[in-house]
């Protein structure tokens, strides 16, 4: 095969990988979609309880976490720009910043959950079944949704860490950056979901 042919083939391969990532994102969206469906059914059934429940959450922490994720989403998008411009150093810094922000997010989350746990409020606790039905469902949803989201944060962090090493070793470079692009896409998905989780869980009027 000529060099040109190899190049075209590799490029087609990148297109395939990107399409593959998008398809995977579709499944993730629908995975959370199932939860949002459950959420909307119960919210329609117990509006007052959901409102009360949301008052128990700290909007400040939620807002901070929203900002953190938004910024991290931008930094990872920028790191892609950086690698496209062949600025490896900057790209690596930006990925690290993203990872740092992800850690901040998780730290906040642990803090938030920890406070609830201390009040005996967690799935399977003695207190939960004694709550009013709407409150119980609200908190179950809260833990299930944010828990699943946190799991995705962790997966995203693993992916980005791999990308970091690939940039470092030169496996990801200004000609071939599909791995970073896909890692970034995944990270944006995590952000996208949080954009909806935040108002739905924290800001119920």
């Amino acid at each position, binding site marked *: 095969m000529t060099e040109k042919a190899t190049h075209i083939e590799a*490029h*087609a391969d990148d*297109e395939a990988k990107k*399409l593959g990532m*998008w398809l995977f994102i*579709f499944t993730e*969206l*629908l995975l959370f*979609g199932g939860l*949002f*469906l459950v959420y*909307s*059914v119960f919210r*329609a*059934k117990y509006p007052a309880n959901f409102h009360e429940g949301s008052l128990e959450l700290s*909007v400040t922490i939620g*807002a901070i976490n*929203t*900002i953190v994720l*938004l*910024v991290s*989403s*931008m930094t990872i*998008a*920028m790191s*892609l*720009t950086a690698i*496209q*411009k062949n600025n490896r150093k900057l790209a690596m810094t930006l990925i690290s910043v993203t990872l740092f922000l992800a850690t901040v997010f998780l730290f906040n989350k642990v803090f938030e959950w920890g406070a609830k746990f201390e009040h005996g409020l967690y799935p399977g606790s003695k207190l939960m079944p004694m709550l009013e039905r709407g409150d119980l469902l609200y908190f179950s949803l809260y833990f299930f949704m944010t828990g699943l989201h946190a799991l995705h944060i962790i997966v995203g962090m693993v992916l980005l860490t791999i990308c970091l090493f690939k940039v470092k070793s030169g496996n990801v470079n200004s000609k071939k950056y599909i791995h970073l692009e896909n890692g*970034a*896409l995944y990270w*944006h998905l995590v*952000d*996208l979901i949080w*954009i*909806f989780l*935040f*108002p*739905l869980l924290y*800001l*119920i*009027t």
Partner: protein
Amino acid sequence: MANNTTHTTEYRVLARVLLVLMFLTFLTISVTSYHLAAFGVTVALLIAGTKGFLVLTYFMHLKYESLLLRILVSMVFVLYAVIILITFIDYAYR
């Protein structure tokens, strides 16, 4: 799909998008602190939808992707909306 042009999004575009996103976040928090009751959900969802749209278009580069991919993405959202709607044909009338 032989769309070989890859687009590089400039830093300043990304930064501007972030600013808008932050502003929208601030907006939804302040709007929901007025008790708009019925409109609360609609407004919150509208704002979240706008934010999601921005993330998809700029951060996820959809603006520069092939038409096919853009259609597929919108199709998924439409499908999901339809599923929710249909489920509520049951719940809304029970």
